[in-house]
């Protein structure tokens, strides 16, 4: 990767969507088929999910991936 490229940070609204539906992390994890630790890691920004998992989340919340995940440019 080129050095002058800005670093892209993936942010998500998963905790917001989850709170809107009054779901616990455990419940969402069960519905999506992952562990609670994975939901914790995604919400905290520690783990970026695969495209497949992102689509599964979008399908579960009946929305688009863009409504859950977005990109912010970070200064190096």
């Amino acid at each position, binding site marked *: 990767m080129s050095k002058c490229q800005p670093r892209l940070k993936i942010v998500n609204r998963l905790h917001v969507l989850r709170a809107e539906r009054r779901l616990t992390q455990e419940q969402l994890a069960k519905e999506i*088929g992952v562990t609670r630790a*994975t939901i914790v890691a995604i919400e*905290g920004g520690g783990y970026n999910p695969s495209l497949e998992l992102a689509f599964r989340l979008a399908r579960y919340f009946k929305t688009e991936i863009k409504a859950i995940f977005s990109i912010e440019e970070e200064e190096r």
Partner: protein
Amino acid sequence: MKKLDSILLKAFLYGLPIVIMLGIFSYFYGLGIFNQATGKVKFLYNFVGLIFALWMLLSIYLCVRLMVSGSLRNKVLAKLTFIRERDEREVMLTGKATKTTFLTSLAILIFLFCLSCFQVSIYRLPPAKAVDGKTGIVSLGFGFNLLESSKQANANKTLKERDIFTYTGLPVSSTAVILLLIIWQIISYNCSMQRLVKNEHKVT
């Protein structure tokens, strides 16, 4: 085959405490007690010997199966090393931890190889054999022996001189090195995994 492996694995695991108990018993009481024994005790001794022989045979079979069968390896060794791959995140973390373990193990193996190859010997020659009037000799070498016996022959050869210091490879047995490497692999993997999970939480 899978069912047979499962049954044999259970037999191996159930036999393990018995073998350990036998080992402890023979360590404390020795074989003398059985040599003098007669009747039922002698029969029991022979029976236990047969069981032990079967258990050893079983363990060799399972070791070979572990090398050949991928499913058995995943089932047994994954449990033994506490590998958990319940979702994609855990698969990714396992991959990273395994890479760390592989590279550190490789580094250790290279280090051990160097230690086992280097040979240093400091000795004093008899005055009649002095070289340029000097009797103190420092000998450095790099030896690679395919067989264990040839290594020992070289070690004995150097001992004929008046030795001050001799280093002819690792002082630890190959069995101990293998056991240490097995333990290292398990510990290293789990430590790497813990560190990766901690790093994940640091971001939050």
